[in-house]
């Protein structure tokens, strides 16, 4: 039934030049900025704009020698790891809580996912004010970590929840039936089966935190993360080194996301 309709649609689309052009334009629109960025990271000139003056790797060499950049990168990486560990742990625990029936379950569920839709600027402002109210010093492993955990927690929760939701409870009953207490049932049956989901959640939480800008901008204080550093670099003296950093970030993020997808599919 669907097969002939689909092939007819395909035939029609294939013959339709406007649709084809539309597709090309759309992909250009989506990817041209990134492609442009990557191409000019190899440009042998001090400007980040055309014309093209030849191929070089010097910007990448500079990137590797840039100490400030290295600090910012390490900050982002360790913040990402901390964020991922905390929000996946919390998210997993909450996903388990949702296996029980309780009053107001739907409401609590919605409340948990709300931060996904809250504008970053709202969280940024709110945390800044909160920190001021308690007279705390904003910083990487205080206010920024809190902001990142709040931001990534719903994603981590949702990924593990989905996995747990289609988990066959009779497997756990079978384990207990065969003599495994609750802890051993979790260790030998439940956790191994949700592990791909947990790993995917870790990867996604890390990536989200690694790339985060707006919330960080508000609460970072005197320290730096990689996106913050890149931003300030562009605003001050922009060289193709920025392009090189951008290209590296694109590469890293893409491979993380790809890896995460592999685990999500498992």
């Amino acid at each position, binding site marked *: 039934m669907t097969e002939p309709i689909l092939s007819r649609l395909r035939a029609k689309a294939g013959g339709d030049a406007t649709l084809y052009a539309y597709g090309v334009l759309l992909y250009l629109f989506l990817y041209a900025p990134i492609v442009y960025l990557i191409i000019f990271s190899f440009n042998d000139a001090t400007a980040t704009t055309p014309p093209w003056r030849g191929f070089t790797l010097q910007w990448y060499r500079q990137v590797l020698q840039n100490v400030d950049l290295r600090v910012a990168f390490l900050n982002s990486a360790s913040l990402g790891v901390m964020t991922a560990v905390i929000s996946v742990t919390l998210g997993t625990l909450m996903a388990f809580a949702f296996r029980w029936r309780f009053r107001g379950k739907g409401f609590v569920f919605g409340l948990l996912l709300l931060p996904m839709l809250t504008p970053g600027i709202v969280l940024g402002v709110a945390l800044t004010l909160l920190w001021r109210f308690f007279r705390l010093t904003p910083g990487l492993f205080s206010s920024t970590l809190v902001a990142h955990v709040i931001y990534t927690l719903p994603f981590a929760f949702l990924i593990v929840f989905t996995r747990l939701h289609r988990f066959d409870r009779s497997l756990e*009953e079978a384990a*207990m039936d065969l003599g495994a207490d609750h802890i051993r049932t979790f260790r*030998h049956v439940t956790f191994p089966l949700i592990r791909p989901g947990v790993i995917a959640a870790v990867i996604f939480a890390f990536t989200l935190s690694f790339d985060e800008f707006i919330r960080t901008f508000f609460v970072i204080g005197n320290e730096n993360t990689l996106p913050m550093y890149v931003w300030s670099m562009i605003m001050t003296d922009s060289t193709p080194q920025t392009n090189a950093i951008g290209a590296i970030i694109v590469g890293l993020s893409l491979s993380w996301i790809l890896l995460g997808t592999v685990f999500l599919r498992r």
Partner: protein
Amino acid sequence: MNSAGRSPYDLEIRGLAKTYGAIRAVDGISLEVERGEFLSILGPSGCGKTTTLRMIAGFEQPDAGEIYLQGTQMGTTPPYERNVNTVFQSYALFPHMTVFDNIAFGLRMKRLAREQIARRVKRMLTIVELAGYEQRLPHQLSGGEQQRVGLARALVKEPTVLLLDEPLGALDLKVRKRMQYELKRIHREVGITFIYVTHDQEEALVMSDRIAVMNQGRIEQVDTTFDIYERPQSLFVADFIGESNTFAGEVVATGEDVSVRCGERVVLRGRPVSAALPVGVQVDVVVRPEKIGMGRPETSHAGEENCLRGWVREVVFQGTSVKYVLDIGAGNPLIVHQQNSLSYPQAEFLKPGEEVLALWRLESTLVFPRR
């Protein structure tokens, strides 16, 4: 009572009950199961079979009543401390473990020595005829093979009682018939008490020593397969097991046996199943289709207390038997099964429209008071 092993029964249930909201899933059942017995719990969908098994396994806490395993009261003992194992309808094999690891799981939880585990798993694999399948994953097995792994996984722990919840429900007819036979063989081989839940009456008859027929959370009757079939204690049991003709009527004469008027000109004679039935009581009369004989209307028949004139309405050839649907003027038509013992070209079956006598004995006529 709690000195383990001194009870003659592997399993005893006293007044077990479980309510879900307004639904009385199990409504006060009692049962004794002897060592090594194959007992089936049979009943229609939703009658509480699974709930009963889950309470025995310890997955569900009863609202009332007690469960004793070899004389030991179970109380709130968790599933992992009960010497009972379950074969799940959905198999519930661990998808991330090989066949070997699935079967070894229970023994590893007992922390047995590695060689001992290997030996027992191997023996179990031989019993369920899956030797050589050790390294397969569950999704690489057919339904029947998965079921056998599920069985091996539960049996390898040598439980006091093995619980099976419609273990063949998901298999197609042919595999199912073979597995019925296999299960019987395995039961004989291991000598463990089997509690087998099914809603297939034929399966229950074929496999069990005894059958407990359940209806709406209660046990209607527990008996040997023969007695369940031949001496059902209620209309429900008679109706649920095998095929039967049922006629509504009123007692018109009573004595050692009763006469029941069913419709204008039909009076059937039969045995009341329980207490004596006074004249005027509303009853249901049941007779099984294969207990009925047929004769030519002109001949006389002695010895058959029930003899009715009827007309053939329908003839259905079923291979090993022939099913006749007769009009006898008693409300429902009368269904008769006759063994197909004719050898071509000797004789012919009756034809629609022909007049016949339907004959059967007093003992084959069960009379149940209307509830």
